[in-house]
């Protein structure tokens, strides 16, 4: 996520990316994006491998904000079962420190950095009202309840902000950081960089030699209870 930024950091050994699929089950057993990293162009490899190396130091968030942001992002991304996990807050922090925004903000929202600071503070405030603890120190179920209450507001007011615009801010930054990580790609069966190699077997039910078939093809999330 922050591969183009900061000082020299580990570019990873290009060993296997950590398996993080405690909750989703391992649908692509043995699939490892990094096993193909020797076939990537050097510029892309530099950017992607930096994400499995040491995360950048926190520069933007205060310690209290870092704690709240970590709890928020872990709940939003379902990282509820401990290690290993994808550290998303360091890359969000790096973007905010560098003002690397998406290039726009809603007229009724502060600039992204300030919006993050404000909304993390509001989470702490809601959490203290609900269970007398700062958001980061609350049990996960309580954290989820506070988050769900924000989503349930839709476009209504939340501490003077449009809750839908807050939700957009959180999920955009969190999903971008998470689904940029090779561990997340392993979980969804996506092989990541494809240059200069390209693909030789496109088409329905066609696979490259390095792609792994879904072990649970009928595990349709829209079936039954999820809908």
């Amino acid at each position, binding site marked *: 996520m922050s591969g183009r930024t900061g000082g020299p950091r580990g570019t990873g050994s290009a060993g296997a990316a950590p398996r993080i699929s405690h909750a989703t089950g391992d649908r692509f057993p043995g699939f490892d994006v990094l096993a193909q990293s020797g076939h990537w162009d050097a510029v892309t490899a530099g950017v992607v491998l930096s994400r499995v190396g040491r995360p950048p130091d926190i520069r933007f968030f205060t310690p209290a904000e870092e704690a709240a942001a970590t709890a928020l992002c872990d709940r939003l991304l379902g990282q509820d079962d401990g290690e290993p996990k994808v550290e998303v807050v360091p890359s969000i922090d790096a973007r905010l420190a560098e003002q690397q925004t998406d290039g726009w903000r809603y007229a009724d929202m502060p600039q992204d950095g300030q919006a993050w600071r404000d909304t993390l503070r509001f989470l702490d405030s809601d959490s203290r009202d609900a269970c007398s603890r700062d958001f980061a120190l609350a049990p996960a179920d309580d954290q989820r309840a506070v988050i769900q209450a924000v989503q349930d507001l839709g476009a209504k007011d939340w501490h003077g902000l449009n809750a839908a615009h807050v939700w957009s801010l959180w999920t955009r930054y969190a999903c971008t950081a998470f689904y940029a990580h090779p561990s997340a790609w392993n979980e969804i069966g996506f092989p990541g960089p494809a*240059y200069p190699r390209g693909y030789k077997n496109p088409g329905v039910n066609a696979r490259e030699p390095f792609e792994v078939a879904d072990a649970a093809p009928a595990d349709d999330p829209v079936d039954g209870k999820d809908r």
Partner: protein
Amino acid sequence: MTTVRERNESAWLLPNDGSRTNHRLRADMRRFADSDTVDLVVVGCGAGGSTLLQRLARHGWRVVGLDAGPFWDPDADWVSDEAGSHHLYWTEPRVISGADPVPMGSNNSGRGVGGSMVHYAGYTPRFHPSDFATRTNDGVGADWPIGYQDLRPYYEDIEQELPVAGEDWPWGDPHGYPQRPHPVGGNGEIFLRGAYAAGITAKVGPVAISNGRFGNRPHCVYRGFCLQGCKVNAKASPLITHIPDALAHGAEIRANAMITGIGFDERTGRATGVHYIRGGVPRFQRAAAVAVAGYSIETPRLLLNSASRRFPDGLCNDFDQVGRYLMVQGAPQTAGRFDAEVRMYKSPPPEVSTEEFYETDPAQPYKRGFSIQTVSPLPITWAEHVAAQGHWGARLRRYMSDYVHWSCLGALCEFLAQPGNRVTLAEEKDRYGLPVASFSYSQCDNDKRLMRAAQGVMERILRAAGADEVITIDRYAHLVGGARMAADERHGVVDRDCRSFAVPNLYITDGSVLPTQGSANPALTIMAVSARAAAHLAAGGR
């Protein structure tokens, strides 16, 4: 009849050794001094600006193209990765508002030489003849001061220069393409299968990705990262289709130059050049004529930021037309779930489209229409689609782990031009101290009906292909308008030849001059309009 190579040698000026940039051509580039009064300075080196530069350099004009972003080298600057491509987008601050605010950035704003075409998907459909007279024919939108026949020869030229691959095209003005259609991947296969079962005609193309070698540009490797900049040089962008030929004919490209204002002489009423900042140093390039090609947000912003005694409300803004009638296309994206593996990331996102719903259908409660195309989002963009369903936490992860089973289509709905959808200046300033653009957007009822109708057709296609579930995200795509061409100065900013009504040597040659947008991706039309303006200039408009 000249060959493409005789008209535009760009593809043969690129290296054939596996690298993507002709560094010698750039090092040997002609360079002008700020004090030289060049024949034309062009603001912005995207679809419109680059085409103009190449054409006029060929006619012996002394031309300089300035761009706020870098002069890209695909080998060194671009990656085969979604999040690592953030620098391709215009991410200077912008403020969005209105009843239906339109997010900017990665979706619709380019930066650097090549402009948005560096990261567009590559679809290059023509507009239909009906697009040029929607006011007369449908009672909505606006009539252009030119017709389809005026653009047709330029469409044909540009299609050869890019070049465009696709099946014979049955819609609008029926036509063929210079290259045969690409083979399709899983997503295209699903679209074709579903459309056939639903009784809808779908065709492969039109895509500006070379199918086979073209000059020294290699064939596509079907890696799927078209929206991250083509590292292969297979997908067309002006960086490789027009800029090399422009350089070879004496044009200068001055990158990393942020234009801050257009010089104006109160006495003569003419533009004198452009103010710009490069490396932190304020400079002024003198020019006999100025062409603005900064696209629909930055072009109006630059005019509004170029106020003078004669133009207190912004250059060319005598009749409050600058920044108005800006359009986006409604771009709902509908995905379908299959037990089979689709793996839509394997192949270029642009594959198959239908324009069967493009024209006004008297049986429907809306005017104009929409097109439908394959879109094939990569994981981060797909996560946005899934998160838009309200999923988060463990459920989001479960949905995402199902990625290989989804097929995804996108519509382009012809939103109508409205005066209130516009760019104004915000109080917030950028790092150059210039007010940033504020962009307000609200949909009209016709726009909203088109969105739902397009979603309905996409769901029909996907279900006909066997999808057991469909999910939709409402999005927007593309930008046009904001400084439109019109018959007179009370209804637009420029005339039929892209010359501003108010300043005789000031031109606007980008998507902002389009009065309507059809349901077509705009790149080809922007290039064709610019090529037509270039022909006018070369014929004596100087």
